[in-house]
């Protein structure tokens, strides 16, 4: 039996919190890149692209993140990849984030008036130029608030990676709770840490949304 003081608990949880933050950043960064690629694919009007991307989004939005994690964890191993929990968690959360972000950003692009596409086309801009100089700058303004809101979902999503053995703050909490028999205190602390990460993001997202509303 190991004795833990409150500061030991807090220190261990804070150290594990780095992994929660790190994994969230990986998922957000890689997910954004993939989501942008999917969005461009969808807007490109290539045959079948719209349906394929919609299918991808539906699969990731219509299944539990927990199942996606298990599937990728065991699936990568079946493919012969030497998986670590970090790799499986990063891949899974990247795919998960890309599906949601693609859907969110599609909504933003669609709310850019159609005349903007037509006007830029009449200036002989290519598809890429239209996107880069005309459509995306306007869509991005609309997209910041919901994207910030979705970052909260990513941070909360990382909690599930504890079930495939990735030691972030939830897993650390579980381990410490099992050693100290103080689940009330420990899960309370863990919840507080998530709250401290997510609440400012939520507030920021709400503020941005409010600021954009009169403009639209």
């Amino acid at each position: 039996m190991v004795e833990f003081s409150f500061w030991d608990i807090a220190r261990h949880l804070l150290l594990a919190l780095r992994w929660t933050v790190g994994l969230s950043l990986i998922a957000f960064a890689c997910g954004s890149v993939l989501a942008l690629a999917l969005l461009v694919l969808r807007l490109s009007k290539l045959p079948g692209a719209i349906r394929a991307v919609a299918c991808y989004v539906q699969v990731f939005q219509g299944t539990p993140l927990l199942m996606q994690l298990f599937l990728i964890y065991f699936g990568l191993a079946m493919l012969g990849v030497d998986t670590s929990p970090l790799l499986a968690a990063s891949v899974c959360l990247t795919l998960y984030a890309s599906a949601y972000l693609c859907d969110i950003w599609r909504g933003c692009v669609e709310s850019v008036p159609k005349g903007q596409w037509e006007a830029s086309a009449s200036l002989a801009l290519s598809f890429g130029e239209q996107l880069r100089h005309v459509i995306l700058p306007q869509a991005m303004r609309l997209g910041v608030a919901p994207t910030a809101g979705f970052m909260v979902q990513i941070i909360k999503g990382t909690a599930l990676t504890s079930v495939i053995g990735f030691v972030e703050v939830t897993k650390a909490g579980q381990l410490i709770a099992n050693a100290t028999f103080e689940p009330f205190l420990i899960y309370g602390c863990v919840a507080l840490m998530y709250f401290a990460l997510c609440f400012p993001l939520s507030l920021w997202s709400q503020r941005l949304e409010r600021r954009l509303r009169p403009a639209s």
Partner: protein
Amino acid sequence: MTMDFATVLAQWPMFLKGLALTAMLTAIATPLGVALGVACAWMRLNAGPVPRFVVSAYVEVFRNTPFIIQLFFLFFGLPSLGLRLSPETASILAMTLNLGAYACEQVRAGIQATPRGQIEAAQSLAMDRWQIFTRVVLPPSLGRVWPALTGQIILVMLGSAVCSQISTEEISYAANLISSRTFRSFEAYIVVTLIYLGLAIMLRQLLNWLGPRFVFGRRR
């Protein structure tokens, strides 16, 4: 790499039992959660400053912490206060509280979009506050936010997969069990993931059908 679905599918009674419990958890938590959300939305808009602060605190805490932690806190944490819940009760409680927090914000947005004139018209018909809220304000508000609410209910249903972690024997618990019995993890999770996908699509259809008829439709 070979797939062997036959071994996994031979365990179909377990999938079925899990599916039934997932459906039951969702069927109980959804009306409770929406009702809680409506009650909280009303309090946030009409109650005094103290209850309003309590409701906001509840909403923000549940929206900004992961479901798995809420579940662990209820299931592992509460017994030290002398409140021991069964896995099923803890799951339903966590799902209800989680849905209630999100539904509160959505319903509140719907209520705030009510045109002022409708309330004034109802007042001029001498309806009391309760009648105005339940007959004039609430039904169209729910109608306005129904698509968002549907999405949230589906997310809570999918989130119930996490309840397997406190040994609630719903469908992802069945997947865990079958994968450890047959060593066919990937196949077991594929089957259950597809079941969830089907459930999500069906639940959306069901709520789309149910909403206009029973929740916010015209009463005759």
